[in-house]
């Protein structure tokens, strides 16, 4: 409406009107966000003041209680064993999901799909696995696999598979459209196109995504561990519920060290291969 008025006005468009327009858009956006905030706070019963008050309280509590004590250090071997298991689990999940997602994704890309219907089907399947929350998979698998490492493995696998299928499809479409066309023009077979064209041109991107997913999966597996009573998440939950905060803090610190170490190694690898 305001745009119409500006067009009809005899004043020629000058610089001030740009700034006024920008200011108006900014104010509208700000008001919309503020309204959304207030409505959401009402819906969830969220007390803004209590929220801000809880931060200093939590910091004081963390400094006082989340300090590894004597008892915690005696549990270190146990914690480290679970931590190693979690790290290996997230690597294994990500690698398996990546291999499956790559070959499944090939059927869904614009350049390498076999026919449009299969391509569409692949995208729908990937969207399904991506959007069903890992919590649902964890609850579902708990019925059949029980408190087993495989519960976490499959719950993470399905979500990672869905996510990586989408990203691999996008990566392949982005990176290798030209080289696929060139290879097909020279009469290369489908497998030759994949192994000589697509994999070499997109492998750096793919590794980068795999490294990112490994890091994400360590965090997700903590959550699934809390939910299904397995792995490092269970260990934290156990100490936390027993009010053994010293040991719980050692679990947190060990996860932080692991995640940051993985991040540093990943960044180093990315620097070399990209």
């Amino acid at each position, binding site marked *: 409406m305001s745009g119409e008025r500006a067009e009809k006005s005899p004043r020629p468009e000058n610089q001030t009107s740009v700034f006024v327009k*920008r200011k108006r858009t900014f104010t509208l956006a700000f008001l919309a966000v503020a309204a959304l*905030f207030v*409505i*959401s*706070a009402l*819906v*969830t*019963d*969220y007390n803004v003041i209590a*929220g801000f008050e*809880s*931060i200093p*309280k*939590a910091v004081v*509590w963390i400094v006082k209680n989340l300090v590894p004590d004597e008892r915690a250090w005696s549990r270190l071997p146990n914690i480290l064993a679970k931590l190693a*298991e979690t790290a*290996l*689990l997230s*690597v*294994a999940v990500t*690698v*398996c999901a990546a291999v499956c997602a790559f070959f499944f994704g090939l059927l869904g890309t614009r350049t390498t799909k076999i026919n449009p219907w299969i391509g569409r089907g692949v995208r729908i399947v990937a969207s399904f696995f991506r*959007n*069903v*929350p890992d*919590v*649902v998979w964890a*609850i*579902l*698998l*708990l*019925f*059949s*696999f*029980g408190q*087993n*490492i*495989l519960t976490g493995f499959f719950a993470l696998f399905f979500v990672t598979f869905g996510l990586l299928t989408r990203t691999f499809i996008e990566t392949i479409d982005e990176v290798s459209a030209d080289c696929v066309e060139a290879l097909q023009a020279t009469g290369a077979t489908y497998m030759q196109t994949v192994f*000589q064209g697509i994999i070499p041109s997109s*492998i*750096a991107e793919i*590794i980068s995504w*795999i490294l990112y997913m490994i890091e994400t999966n360590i*965090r997700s597996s*903590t*959550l699934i561990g*809390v*939910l299904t009573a397995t792995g490092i*998440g269970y260990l*934290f*939950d156990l100490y936390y519920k027993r009010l053994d905060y010293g040991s719980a803090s050692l679990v*947190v610190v060990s*996860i*932080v060290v692991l*995640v*940051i170490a993985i*991040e540093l190694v990943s960044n180093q*690898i990315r620097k*070399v*291969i990209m």
Partner: protein
Amino acid sequence: MSELAVPVTGSLSLDLHKHMKKNRGGKIKIGAQSKSGPAVKMTLLVLLGLTIFGFLTFDYKGIDFAGAVSATMNNVQVVFGQPHLKYNTLPGAMHGLLVTFALGVLSTIIGASIALFGALLCARNIANARVATLVKGFVAFIRAVPTILWVLIFAVAAGLGSVAAVVGLSFHSAAYLIKAYSESFEEMDSGTIEALKASGASYWQIVFQAVLPASISYMTAWTFLRFEINFANAIAMGAAAGAGGIGYDLFMAGSFYFDLRELGFITYIVVAAVILLEIVATKVKAKVR
């Protein structure tokens, strides 16, 4: 560049020999030679090795794998094939969805507001280098702790419920968005900032007239991505940390009533909501760009 420009027609054949690699059979090796090749191979081999080592050392507790898989298939069929509502009602589930949505909105808005200032403190092109390093380290630490642990830690101070969930989720969001925002600030053209500085613009003028307008589309895209993540996390917090919402409904259906069909119905609601969200986010992102 200049080396390439020198004409070397005389030594062309010699050069060709130097660069042409042959294998033992005398055939010319094809395939690109690159520095990153060995690194890629090493990374893949290490990952593969860790995977195999992991599978060999996991404690499977002697599970009956075939039985478990067939039971899973059966359960999947029940969950997705015969959804119904028994303990919950459709309005109840919708309210749960609304609460989860609101949790996601709150934590994204709080996280983004903190991140806006945090990112200004740690973008290398506009901030003090020492402060930037400090903030970046602190933020990396916050990001490394899983969201669920933050929520549980805040729950001790604030009690289980929406306050702990929102503060915990916001904490992680802020750290994530500080990294994303500051990276998009760093990508901006350094000439603009220099020109504004030279013309005597103040710090806030530079921020509001150059830095924010240049990176607003990136920031919107990242914020929406984070909102999608927060929505998913809010579901998880409902299930694992008693934060309420549809996640709690999921947990009750699956782990309290043991009703797979109800779990299926709520899952369908969640999936529909997430896909709807994705469509809206794509539209908004396209508009901002």
